[in-house]
C-alpha cells in the first residue's frame, strides 16, 4: 500500500509532476543522444585508425617508433609469438614490414608507405573484402600490389598498370622495384588512403632486402578487453630491453588527446544538464515535502512509523524520477538505433575538416546498453541523494508542531 500511496501522491499535483517528469525525460533523452553521438564518433575514429588497421597494441624493436627506418626492423622468434598469442584477450597477431619509398608512374611521383602484409591473417583485422573497390585482393603468393584509393586517384591508375618504387633498403641497400597493380582499396581514412601501398610480406622483405625481418608486430584484442592490461602482460612476459610495446594511445596520442578534449566538453554539457535536472527534482521534492508537513504530523500521530513515512517519500521521488527516465530511454532508443544503422554523413566544410584530420566524415551513433544504463543510474542516484532532504525533515518532525502549522 505504501507504493500505492506514493504513486497516487506523485499525481496529487499533476502539472508539477508532469513538468518534473518532462525535465527528466529531456535530460535523459539529450544525455543519451549526445553520448551516443560522441562515443559513436570516437568509436568510429578509433576504428578508422586503430581497430581496423594499426591494432590496439604494437610491438616494435627498441627505438623504432621514434626513428621509423627499415634499419630498426627486427626478427621475431616463434617463442615470443607464442607467448603473446597465449595472453588472455589477444585475438590476432600480424607481422608487417613498413618502409617509405618514392613511387612513380608516367611523369608523376609521390611518397608512399609500402607495407608488407600477410594477406590471410591481415584479413581478420583489416577486413579487406569490405575495403576492396576495384580489382583483386592479395593472395599469399601474389607478386603484385594493391594501393589505397588516394594513390590510385593521384596516378589515375588502372588494374594492370605498373608502379615503380625507389627507396632505401635494410642497412643501406638500395630498394628498387616495379610492381603491377592488382587492386584498389578504400582505407576509410584519408591519410592512409593517400599514402598506402600493400604487397605481401615476402615481396616487401625482398624489396627492402630484409629477409625474415618485420618492423611492426600488430596485436589485436578481443572486444571489451583492456589494451593497457594486455600491453602490461606482454611487457612482463618478453624482454623489455629489445622491444617497445605500445598501445594505440601511445602510438597516436593526438587521437587520444582529441577524444579526451572533446569528451571533456561533452561531459561538461551533460553535467550542466544534470545540474538543471537536480534542481528540478529537488524543487519538486522540496514542495512535496513542505506542503505536506501537517499531513506527516497526522500520519505519525495515528501510528505511522517515521521509517515507513520515509520509505513512502523515497518511493515518491524514485517513481517520479523513474517515470522520467523510462520515458527518456524508451524514446531515445529507436532514435539512437536509427542513427546507428544510418550514420550521419557530414557534408561541406565539416566533411573536409574531418577528412583533413584523417577521419571518415560519418558519425555513426553508439548503440550500447551502457549509455542509457549509465545515465539512468546517474539520475536515479541524484534522486536518491535528493531523498536525504525529506528523510531529514521526517526524522526531525514533531507531530504536534507540524499539526499547528
Amino acid at each position, binding site marked *: 500500500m505504501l507504493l500505492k*500511496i506514493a504513486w497516487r501522491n506523485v499525481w496529487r499535483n499533476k502539472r508539477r509532476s508532469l513538468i518534473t517528469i518532462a525535465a527528466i525525460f529531456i535530460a535523459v533523452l539529450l544525455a543519451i543522444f549526445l553520448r551516443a553521438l560522441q562515443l559513436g564518433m570516437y568509436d568510429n575514429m578509433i576504428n578508422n585508425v586503430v581497430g581496423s588497421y594499426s591494432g590496439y597494441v604494437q610491438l616494435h624493436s627498441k627505438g623504432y617508433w621514434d626513428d621509423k627506418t627499415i634499419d630498426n626492423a627486427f626478427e621475431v622468434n616463434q617463442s615470443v609469438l607464442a607467448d603473446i598469442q597465449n595472453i588472455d584477450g589477444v585475438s590476432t597477431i600480424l607481422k608487417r614490414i613498413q618502409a617509405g619509398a618514392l613511387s612513380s608512374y608516367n611523369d608523376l611521383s609521390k611518397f608512399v608507405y609500402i607495407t608488407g602484409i600477410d594477406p590471410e591473417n591481415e584479413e581478420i583485422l583489416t577486413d579487406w573484402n569490405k575495403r576492396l573497390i576495384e580489382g583483386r585482393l592479395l593472395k599469399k603468393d601474389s607478386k603484385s600490389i594493391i594501393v589505397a584509393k588516394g594513390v590510385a586517384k593521384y596516378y589515375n591508375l588502372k588494374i594492370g598498370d605498373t608502379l615503380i618504387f625507389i627507396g632505401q633498403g635494410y642497412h643501406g641497400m638500395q630498394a628498387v622495384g616495379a610492381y603491377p597493380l592488382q587492386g584498389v582499396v578504400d582505407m576509410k581514412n584519408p591519410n592512409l588512403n593517400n599514402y598506402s601501398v600493400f604487397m605481401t610480406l615476402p615481396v616487401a622483405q625482398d624489396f627492402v632486402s630484409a629477409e625474415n625481418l618485420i618492423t611492426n608486430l600488430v596485436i589485436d584484442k578481443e572486444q571489451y578487453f583492456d589494451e593497457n592490461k594486455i600491453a602490461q602482460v606482454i611487457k612482463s612476459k618478453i624482454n623489455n630491453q629489445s622491444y617497445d610495446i605500445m598501445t594505440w594511445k601511445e602510438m597516436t596520442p593526438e587521437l587520444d588527446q582529441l577524444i579526451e578534449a572533446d569528451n571533456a566538453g561533452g561531459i561538461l554539457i551533460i553535467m550542466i544538464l544534470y545540474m538543471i535536472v537536480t534542481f528540478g527534482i529537488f524543487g519538486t521534492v522540496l514542495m512535496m515535502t513542505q506542503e505536506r508537513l501537517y499531513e506527516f504530523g497526522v*500520519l505519525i500521530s495515528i*501510528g505511522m*512509523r517515521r521509517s515507513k513515512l520515509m520509505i513512502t517519500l523515497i518511493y515518491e521521488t524514485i517513481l517520479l524520477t523513474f517515470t522520467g527516465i523510462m520515458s527518456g530511454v524508451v524514446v531515445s532508443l529507436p532514435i539512437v538505433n536509427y542513427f546507428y544503422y544510418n550514420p550521419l554523413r557530414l557534408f561541406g566544410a565539416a566533411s573536409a575538416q574531418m577528412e583533413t584530420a584523417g577521419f571518415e566524415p560519418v558519425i555513426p551513433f553508439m548503440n550500447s546498453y551502457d549509455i542509457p544504463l549509465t545515465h539512468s543510474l546517474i539520475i536515479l542516484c541524484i534522486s536518491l541523494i535528493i531523498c536525504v532532504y525529506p528523510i531529514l525533515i521526517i526524522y526531525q518532525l514533531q507531530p504536534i508542531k507540524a499539526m499547528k502549522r
Partner: protein
Amino acid sequence: MNVIETKNISKLYKQADQDIKALNDVSINFKKGEFTAIVGPSGSGKTTFLNTIGGLDSPSSGKVLIDNNEITKLNSNQLIDFRLRNIGFVFQSYNLIPVLTAKENVEFIMLMQGSSKSIRDKRSVELLKSVGLDDQLNRRPNQLSGGQQQRVAVARALASKPKFVLADEPTANLDSSSTSNLLDIMSRLNKKEKMTFIFSTHDQRVIDRANRIITLEDGKILSDINVK
C-alpha cells in the same frame, strides 16, 4: 478499572521569556466505557491535555499511565507504536489521507499494525457499515461531505481496536445534522462496545450527550461532573 490515569501532570511552555502553564498539576482517571467531554475556554489546556494523554506531547512533570503502562517513559518510536495499538484519534479537520479511498483510509491503520489483507478487507467494510458509509467505500475524501469524512475518521480511529478514542473538537466543522449523526454513531459504539471516548469540545450538543464533563481553566480542573 482505569484505562487512563494522570498523576500530577503539568506542562510548561516558554513564550517570549515567559513560562506559561498549559496544564497545572492535573490528576484524573478515566474508566472503560466513559463518554467524556472536556470543556473550557480557548487556552484552558484542553488540547494540551488530549495531546498528553494521547502520547503526542510529553508533560513537563507528572505521569501518564495507560492500562498501568507509564507512557511518559517511552521514546518517540515506542510512542508511535503505542498510539497505533492503543489509541484512536479523531481530528477537527478529519485528516484523512487524501489519495486513499474511504475503505483504504480505514485499512491503512490495520496495515500499519501488520494485519492480513483478508482481515483488513473484512474489518474496514464492517466499520464503514457501522458508521453508515457502506455505499461510499471507494470514494476519496474529496468526494465525501464533511460529515461523511468525519465518520470515516471515526471508523479509522476504531480500526486498530484501540483502548480509547481521543477526539479533538470533532464536530467543529460539521453542520447540525452531521453532528447529530456522528454523535449517534459514537454513542452507539460507546454503549454497544463499551468504547471509551474523550472529547475536547465547545459544542453544547456534544456536552449534552456526554456522561462525564470535565471543565478545565488555566490548565487546572475546575469541575469534574458525572452526568448520568
